[in-house]
Structure formats: C-alpha cells, structure tokens
C-alpha cells in the first residue's frame, strides 16, 4: 500500500452539526488530491482533524501505515504532516527568513537543554535551516525578501511565504488550505509550479480549493464534500461534468 495518508471512517460532530461523516480517503505518493465542495462542507475541518487541531470522535488516521491517534498537533507535524492555513497565520513580528527558520520538523533551538549544553550544534542547525529556507525561497524567486518583515509584503507574496514555511517540513504529506485564494499573476504561477514540483518529488499533496482552473491544472483526482460527507470522488473531469455536484456547488 503506497498510501501516505489514510483516513478511515473519520467522524466528528460539534453540538448538533456533523462536520465529518464517515470520511474514508487515501492520498498516495506523488498525488495531488483536490478537496472541493461548497463553503461549510467540512474541508478545512478535515484538515484540522488530520493535523490534530480538532480531535476526531471516531476513525483511524495513518501516515505511511503508522497510526497518529492520540498524537498531539506538534507530534503529527513531526511525523511529516505539513499544512498551510486559510488565513496564512504568519508570525507578524518576524522576517520572512525568521518565519521559516522555526519551521523544520526538528528545531534545535526549542530545547533549553540543547541550547545550554550544545550551543555549537544549535548554531549549526540554525545555519542549515537558513540554507534550506533560502533554497526554498530561491525556487519561488523570493530570496531577496528574506530579511523583510512579512507584514511589509504584498498579499500574494505573503501567501507564497506561507507555502515556503510549510515546505520547511520535509515530511511526506502536504495539506494546502485554499492556497490560491486572492492570489493571481506571477504568484499564482509560482505557487502552481512549486506544488507540482513537490508532488513530483514524491509528496502526497491535498489541496482545498475553490479555484476550479487551479484544480483542473494541477490535481490528478478530487473528492467532493458536502455537509461533512464525501459525495463523489474520482477524476476531475468527471466530477466537474456532474450536474448534481454543479447544483450543490453553484446552487444552479
């Protein structure tokens, strides 16, 4: 089984609302899965459940065959689940590079013990993280912005930085929550290219998006969610041709 991320029977409800209803899906290496559906379908909630921000009521979630049940948010990130946020959530008092340097799976500088007793190792880890960050920024042609405060950047570049920060996590799984929302032109093309590169390098990518052309361009297959349930899954072309889905999505 080459599934990197495997969800089985995931349930979650808030009060009376069912946010995830018997969700079963798989994402394989190199696959870019589109997660589409109307607002409130539970797409972001599903990301929150997988990353541990919200605990599932029932169901099994595995990364490369290993169950992540009971693991905390930071542990799941270290197991290789990287994500971006709908509202970016960049660290606003820090520069682009600083945002990224705290983002690798293992960060030596977060341990007081290591800081005090092995400062040399911590410094070297920092330098490596810097190099890794600059390499990622170079792929996006943003390396000259490394020392800029993130709040100084235009919206599109901030979103790219959000993606860059997530890419510091070299794990097998990448979850992108509406990466293209509000992004156009050069930033749009850059983001598409980078996501494609990541998939080609073997990552399992899942993208929540409303932007249909992005989905058509990039995703190999898709899953349509509505009211917490997966209604359809399969090839993009088929899903987009379906009239019932069009009704649900566009209300026409």
């Amino acid at each position, binding site marked *: 089984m080459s599934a990197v991320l495997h969800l089985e029977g995931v349930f979650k409800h808030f009060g009376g609302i069912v946010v995830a209803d018997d969700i079963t899906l798989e994402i394989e290496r190199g696959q870019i899965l589109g997660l589409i559906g109307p607002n409130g379908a539970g797409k972001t909630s599903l990301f929150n459940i997988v990353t541990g921000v919200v605990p599932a009521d029932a169901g099994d979630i595995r990364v490369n065959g290993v169950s992540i049940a009971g693991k905390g948010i930071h542990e799941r990130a270290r197991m290789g689940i990287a994500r971006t946020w709908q509202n970016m959530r*960049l660290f606003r008092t*820090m520069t682009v590079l600083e945002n990224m340097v705290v983002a690798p799976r293992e960060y030596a500088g*977060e341990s007081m013990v290591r800081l005090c007793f092995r400062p040399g190792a911590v410094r070297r880890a920092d330098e490596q993280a810097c*190099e890794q960050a600059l390499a990622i920024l170079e792929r996006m042609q943003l390396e000259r912005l490394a020392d800029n405060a993130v709040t100084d950047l235009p919206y599109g570049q901030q979103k790219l930085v959000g993606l860059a920060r997530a890419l510091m996590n070299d794990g097998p799984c990448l979850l992108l929550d509406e990466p293209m929302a509000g992004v156009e032109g050069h930033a749009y093309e850059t983001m598409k290219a980078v996501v494609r590169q990541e998939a080609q390098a073997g990552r399992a990518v899942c993208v929540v998006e409303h932007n249909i052309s992005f989905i058509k361009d990039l995703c190999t297959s898709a899953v349509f969610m509505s009211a917490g349930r997966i209604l359809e899954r399969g090839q993009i072309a088929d899903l987009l041709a379906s009239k019932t889905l069009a009704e649900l999505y566009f209300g026409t």
Partner: protein
Amino acid sequence: MEYVYSILILVGIYVVLASSFNLIIGTAGLVSIAHPIFFALGAYTSGLLAIHFGLNPIAGTLAGAAVAGVFSLMISLPSLRVSGDYLLITSIGFQLGLLQVIKNLELTGSQGGLSNIPTPIAGPERGWIFSLVALAAGAATVLLIRWIVRGPYGRAISAMRDDELAFVALGRDATRIKIVIFAVGSALAGIAGGIYAFYFQYLSPEQFEILASGTMLTMVVVGGMGSTWGPVVGAVLLLALPQAITFLRLPLSYMAPLQGMIFTLLVILFLFLRPQGLVAPEAPAPLRHKKQ
C-alpha cells in the same frame, strides 16, 4: 555603611526577581502571579537547610533554586496541559495555599517567622561580600536572560507569541517551552530568595504575600515588559521610591500602604499612558546568512 550595603544587596535581589518575572510574563507571555512564592521557597529552603544541616550559603541557595524550579512544575504541568489561561488560577491558588502551609508549619516558624539563619560569613566583610554576590547575581541573571532571548530560543518564543497554533502546527512543543521558561524563571527567583535569607537572616510569611506580587508587577510593567534592561530600571526605581518617601517622615503604619499605593498607581498609569514601559523591548538579533 551597612545601610548602603543593604540597599545594594536589595538592588541585586530585586533585579534578579524583576528579570526572572519579566521572562515569565513579559517575554513568554505566561499569566502568573506566583513569583513571590518561589522567592519564598528559595529563601525558606536555604534557611532551613542552613539551620538544620549547616549547609553553606552557596549550596543552600542552589538547593533553594532547585526546589523552586521543581515546585514550579506543580503549577505548570497540570495547568498548561489544559491551556495557558489556567496557569493564572493555579498560580494564585498555589501562592496562597503554600503561604498558608508556611504560616502553620512549626518547621517554618509559623507566623513568627524563621530567624537566626546562620551564615559562615560574619564580621565587617559581610556587607561588601554580599553586595558583590547580589549585584553579580543580578548582572548574571540579566545577561543569561538576554542570551536566551536573543538566540534561537528567543526566536521560538517570539513565534509562539505571534501565533501559537501556527507555531505548534510546525512541530514545536509550545507547552514544553512554557514549562521550561516557568521553571527557569522560578528557579532564578529561588536564587534571589537564598541570597535574601542568608543576608537578612530572618524570614516571615508577610514578606511573601500576594501583595508582594504588586511590587514585582510594578518593576516589570513600569520598567518595560519583554525588554532586557527594563527590569533593571524597574528594580532601581522601586528601591529609590521608598527612600524618597522616607523623607516625608510619616509613621510606619502609613508608609507601607502609601508605598503600595504609589506602586500600584504607577502600574495603572503606565498601563494606560505608556504600556511598553520605560524601556522598550529591543529587536532580536538578526539572522546571519550568506545571501546578505
């Protein structure tokens, strides 16, 4: 001259207390009121070890710091597991509860306090030796905290304060960072306690009441939360003010509440007129990389 020495020693102690409290509430943003109790734990531990086992001041102070650090886990572990806000309630409860225990235990001298703490250092050198030690401790604390905050650990703390959820989702253990900072800050308060116990040789529970937190809050808020030198400014200010009030020649029963009133009023004024305090936090050390 002895009077000058005691002021210098108090400056050193206050700088340690203010800096460590600033680390906890200013830098890490943890909401806690229990700093006086760690000061007390350090003081009582080293005092009792000296009285019953004749432990020397250095070992005693370190033991006091260790006890304070370990006890801080009793607050931080249960409450931070839940959320950062629970820490406040737990710290209040711990502060008041432990103080009750101290007031009622015969071991700690009950209400009367613990007196006659022995120190091997006696005679005329006492004054300047302790002054040196206290001021050195103050300087060391400030520099230690500065080093922590300016490096990668400080960067992690900044990110954590900017957006804790995003920070954790990157793989960082925010809870552990908070627990460690709380323990380090509390242990430093314990060191201040040890120095206090060995110089003044008398401890009473009133000195560590929750109102003592008002003093520490004043030093941190007025000095400048999150800055390195703010606590130093705050500490010196807090020691200078009572000296200024002494000139008014009021009876003692008026002095203490008047002092308290001025301190709390200062905090309120600063909170509204100059929330960043007297010394603004300085920018962190920039990352050095090849593409500059």
